[in-house]
């Protein structure tokens, strides 16, 4: 073996040893941080082990007692699907109301997020103070939990869906605005030069060079947000902001076990429906002329 080769081999070993050492240190530091975090937040394994069976217990309580033979009988017969979902009509109506809250909040939030995302995308070169202002604004709106906004709006506008919608819309603006801006930072900027070189304004370049390229991503983020907002709208009813949440809160606090599972099942089905629709919509947008 020539001297050059063995020198390179030695250098490689040195480098590998250094990398392993830094990886090891990194893992140790991360582990220590995790332990500290678990200790601070009282995440004790003993509590976990002791409590875990009770999760199962709760689930077995909320599960419906269905009997195979009577599965399709009417709502009067115990053990039938109809008996389990005896208030399905009322719940579906409430769920529909909740979905509408989520839809309006998503559209409102996404519209504002879209407008704020262009100045918040670093590569589009908005003046620095505008960039900083929009980025910080988006952070502020998404850091405050929806439930806090909801309490404020319930106090201002009274109990009802309006407070819930506004609260979710505000949070949606913050969360989507960041994702939208990040998606725009990934678009290719050649068309941008094309529009600018034609004498187009900054706004026109945003509209014609960035929006068409980012649109499929924006749409799929917005649809994901719609799913999340359906869940948020269900929970936000707990503080009197309308929708199926109030009903869910009631059945949980009164320990109407089977009804909890029925309502949760309906929410899961609704989310699945949104997911299926969103996939189709996204396909169509990708193929369409923007």
């Amino acid at each position, binding site marked *: 073996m020539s001297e050059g080769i063995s020198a390179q081999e030695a250098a490689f070993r040195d480098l590998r040893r250094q990398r392993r050492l830094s990886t090891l240190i990194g893992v140790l530091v991360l582990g220590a941080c995790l332990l500290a975090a678990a200790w601070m937040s009282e995440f004790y394994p003993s509590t976990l082990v002791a409590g875990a069976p009770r999760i199962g217990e709760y689930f077995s309580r909320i599960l419906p007692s269905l009997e195979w033979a009577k599965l399709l009988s009417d709502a009067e017969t115990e053990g039938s699907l109809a008996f389990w979902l005896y208030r399905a009509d009322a719940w579906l109506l409430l769920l529909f109301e909740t979905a509408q809250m989520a839809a309006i909040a998503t559209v409102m939030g996404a519209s504002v997020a879209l407008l704020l995302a262009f100045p918040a995308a670093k590569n589009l*070169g908005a003046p620095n103070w505008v960039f900083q202002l929009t980025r910080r604004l988006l952070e502020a709106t998404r850091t405050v939990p929806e439930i806090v906004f909801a309490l404020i709006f319930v106090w201002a506008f009274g109990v009802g869906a309006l407070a819930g919608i506004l609260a979710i819309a505000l949070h949606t603006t913050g969360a989507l605005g960041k994702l939208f801006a990040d998606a725009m930072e990934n678009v290719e900027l050649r068309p941008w030069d094309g529009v600018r070189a034609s004498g187009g304004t900054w*706004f026109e370049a945003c509209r014609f060079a960035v929006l068409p390229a980012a649109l499929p991503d924006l749409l799929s983020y917005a649809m994901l947000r719609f799913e999340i907002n359906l869940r948020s709208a269900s929970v936000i009813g707990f503080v009197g902001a309308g929708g199926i949440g109030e009903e869910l809160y009631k059945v949980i606090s009164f320990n109407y076990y089977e009804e909890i599972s029925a309502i949760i099942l309906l929410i899961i089905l609704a989310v699945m429906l949104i997911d299926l629709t969103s996939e189709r919509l996204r396909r169509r947008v990708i193929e369409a002329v923007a």
Partner: protein
Amino acid sequence: MLEIQGLTRRFGQKKAVDGVSLQIPAGQMVGVIGRSGAGKSTLLRLLNRLAEPSEGRILFNGKDVTALRGRALRDWRTDCAMIFQQFNLVQRLDVLTNVLIGRLNHRHGMMAKIGSLLCHFSPEERAMALAALDRFDLLSTALQRSDTLSGGQQQRVAICRALMQQPRLLLADEPIASLDPRNARTVMDALTQVNRDGITVLVNLHHLDTAREYCDRVVAMQQGHVVFDGPPSELNSARITQIYGLTEAEFQAEAAAAVNARSEFEFPRQPALA
């Protein structure tokens, strides 16, 4: 008449364009050649102010365009249209809308601007765009997405977009470097047609034969300087070797390789609202 006086652009310590002075009478077709990094692309981007000059002036018919801002700058860009090596069309938009983008700065007033943002153009503008497409044999593609077109077609769409600006000057940055020979010919023929309309054309090329065949005048650049400026007939092989220290074949092979490697290269961008 386009007058360039001592134009310089520095990137850090390096001078990409170094004291270039040229006088280009209206209606000329000028080929700019040079090795990779000679400053050809930067020169063109300085002319329509996609890049800002560090020193020097650009005068067009006696008007200084170096310090324009806002509306006046956009008007200047409309006057000197630009086409690019990678066409720079909006891939997901249809061909017709891509061509209409060339019309954006001709639409004045609040309502017209809002209309543009909603992709709303007048029937006259559409007729103009369709006529431009028809001229270059692209009429049937008008409603297709531009990414379904071949490279040669896309570059001709870009030329249509440029013509919609009703420019007095057309800057073409390596317009045929990404095309096969047949498509390259259709694009160069299109540029010649544009030139016959009385529009001055400045075209960066790495193929000397193309420059000789199509241009009235050739400007050769080396490390940011102009090292030759004259009729193509004077730029023979001996002159190339004298300027660059390479044979013509070596020069061309090197330039072609560099152009293909550059396709992912991004230029530093100027601030947005300028």
